[in-house]
């Protein structure tokens, strides 16, 4: 697992459009996007490597770029913040209880004044369910990645800084977890842990930590070779102090950027479990189980405006959130100059 890659791999040219392989979450609810085995990562990176200016210059560039964040970034941030507010405030918004059944809405459940997005076949307000559904997605998305960052981040720092046996062991362990397609691993752990909100958070965290571990480890290794770290070492600074320095200056931006993308991945992962009927059990509304419900009702020939709304509303909700957070992640990465091929 030779990860001490040539300095200045990857870089600016990828930002112009390439490099999605590690950049965007969503596709396949899987590791396909967020990194993989070193051989591939190395392959990806080296295949397109160019000799690039040193990192110092990149930092200066990054500072400039902070000011150059496009309006798109702020729109995306707005969307994410809006969803966070919705999730927090769903209880006080003027919407129905998501599990409440309106019997007048059972028969004709197309969108109307009383139910802006119509009702599901069970007579529950689709708008309310979509808004409340954000809670499950967001709680699991953020909480699981928070756990993943704490666990993966600490282990990654230790492994990346001290190398040696601890690195070997953690490398093998993370490798083993990454040897499963992530949705398969998720399904397996669900049989073990269970399906409550907390359980699913834990499941996603277990799936996610090896990826975050790798990101942080690679960033730590790279950072540990920088001049000022080597100098500090030579001067006999304590490891804890060096780790703190490394952590603050180099690793945190990486962790935050990939954490954001991780949140999108986690939400897609939860959505997939929900869609398969194996996440938080009904009647709790989740975007995934609503999409599954909508999918069922459109496949029946007697589908109507109601079933369209039932499929499209949660789909658009989820898509808007993932797109926004991916976009944020993508922009942030170019601004913070987090390398594409870092894992």
């Amino acid at each position, binding site marked *: 697992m030779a990860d001490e890659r040539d300095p200045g791999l990857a870089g600016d040219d990828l930002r112009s459009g390439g490099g999605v392989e590690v950049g965007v979450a969503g596709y396949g609810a899987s590791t396909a996007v967020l990194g993989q085995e070193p051989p591939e990562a190395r392959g990806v990176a080296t295949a397109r490597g160019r000799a690039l200016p040193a990192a110092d210059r990149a930092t200066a560039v990054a500072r400039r770029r902070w000011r150059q964040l496009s309006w798109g970034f702020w729109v995306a941030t707005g969307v994410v913040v809006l969803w966070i507010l919705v999730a927090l405030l769903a209880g006080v918004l003027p919407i129905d209880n998501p*599990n409440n*059944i309106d019997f007048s809405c059972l028969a004709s459940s197309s969108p109307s004044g009383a139910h802006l997005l119509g009702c599901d*076949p*069970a007579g529950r307000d689709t708008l309310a369910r979509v808004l409340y559904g954000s809670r499950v997605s967001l709680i699991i998305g953020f909480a699981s990645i928070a756990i993943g960052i704490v666990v993966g981040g600490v282990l990654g720092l230790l492994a990346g800084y001290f190398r040696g046996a601890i690195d070997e062991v953690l490398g093998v362990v993370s490798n083993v977890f990454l040897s499963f397609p992530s949705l398969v691993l998720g399904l397996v752990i669900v049989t073990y842990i269970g399906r409550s909100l907390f359980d699913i958070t834990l499941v996603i965290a277990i799936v996610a930590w090896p990826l975050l571990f790798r990101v942080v480890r690679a960033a730590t290794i790279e950072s540990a070779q920088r001049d000022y770290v080597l100098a500090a070492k030579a001067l006999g600074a304590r490891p804890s102090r060096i780790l703190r320095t490394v952590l603050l200056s180099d690793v945190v931006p990486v962790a935050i950027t990939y954490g954001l993308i991780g949140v999108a991945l986690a939400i897609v992962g939860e959505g997939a479990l929900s869609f398969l*009927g194996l996440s938080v059990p*009904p*009647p709790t509304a989740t975007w995934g189980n609503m999409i599954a419900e909508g999918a069922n*009702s459109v496949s*029946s020939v*007697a589908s109507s405006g109601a079933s369209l709304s039932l499929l499209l509303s949660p789909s658009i909700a989820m898509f808007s959130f993932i797109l926004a957070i991916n976009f944020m992640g993508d922009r942030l990465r170019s601004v913070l100059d987090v390398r594409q091929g870092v894992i």
Partner: protein
Amino acid sequence: MGVGKGKPVMGGSVTFGTEAEESGMDPTNAHFDSTGVMYARAVYDPLAIVLQDGTVVPYLAESITPNSSYTLWTITVRPNIVFHDGTLCDGAALKYCMEAFYSSLLTGNSLTYWKKGGLKQVGPRSITVEMEHPWVPFAAWLAGYIGGQIAYIFSPTQMRKGEAVLNSHPVGTGPFVYQDWVPGSHFSLTRNPHYWRKDTYGNQLPYLDSWTFKPIVDVSTRLAALQSQEIDLMHTDDDPTILEVDADSSLVSLRDDELLVGEPDCDFGMINCQSPLMKDIRLRQAAAYAFNQAEYCKLIGKNIVYPTNGPFPHPSPYASATPYPGYDLAKAKALVNSWTHSNGGKAPSITYTTTNSTTAATSAAFVQQLYQAAGFQVQIKQVQQAELINDALLGGYDVFSWRQFANIDPDLNYVFWTSAAGPINFARNYDPYIDAQMNIGRQSTDTPTRVQAYQNVAKQMAKDLPYIWACRDVWCVAGSKQVQNWNNPTSPTGGRGLSMLSGIIWPTEVWKSA
């Protein structure tokens, strides 16, 4: 409807979309529900068949006769019938099967009346079964309805091959031969060329070359598959879907609501009478008073179904008035209050378990509203179809949304209602009075006495309240127009057999017009 017009056509294949997959095909070991009974009828023959008027006549058996006191039953199978594997279906095979049923941990539960060692082969094709007590409606158990798995005679050769062999590769004498089973995908059978039955024209039965069951758990997908002709027949008891079927003129459909034999399926809230909360009769009474049957059957049941006050809804011959507590919110509130008062002021918080279909979700939310109005706190727990039975068995529930009890004779519910069989009495209501009445129903030869006994059971249930009755459940079987004669089973000796009860049909005499 569902009766073939004109001369039957030989050949062709039919696919039936079922509501669930089966857990196995070994009649001593699997538990056959509506789907399972159809699987079994394709590959096995039951010893008897029940006619439309409720009489039970021999089918695979040539005769089924009790002695005068109904304590010794003699069963003789028809001559020269062979299993699909060539084994002769004779007295020895019959005895082998009956012994297996008796020693099975599952079916043995139902055979508590049998005398130990009371099974004897008395002729080349005959056995006798000796009972501890008279068992009058025993023949009904041999007609192969739900619970009556001991009707299905299987090849001893196959059974001897090992524990799971018959369960996954069934071999019987039935109209179709097992070909291929991929659970969750399909259960495929081909025509048995040596089947013993002929139709009135002298055609060798069955008519079809092959038959496939395809479990499609999601009911809207099942209906869509029927409409796009991916499948030819399906069954469902999902009321919104029944309305959709009615509205589709390209389909032929039938319901089981004209049934006059035995009892139909009912929808009800099954209570765990041993759960810490629900063992208090006040809460069970409150649950019954809080339940607005009329509204429920109208809104959730789409007016297809109607309220019932016990396990024998109209037009069952066992129907009667019962003291079942009807909807009375004030009484429900008072009872919950009284319970709350004597339990430290905390409202009772119960779980309501149901499946994860749309209709189940609607129904559960409605029930939740009703119970909350009475002062209960209700947690809804939705489980997958596959988890259902084990959740009920393990007893970790308060109230379970349940559907059961369709049968040709109330005696077949003996194991579910008496305290004799342990965990299969899912509601865990162990009442000696019900036990006694069920025994009277089983042992009496006098029809009015039997009817009275079962009516007493229904009345007692209205007091014990192990079941919060909702509605009589209606099943619908729907098919494309090419599929003929699926509602017209006949007895080998003439006479039209009962069909449709609980969504169960016979594959034997189905044919497909060109």
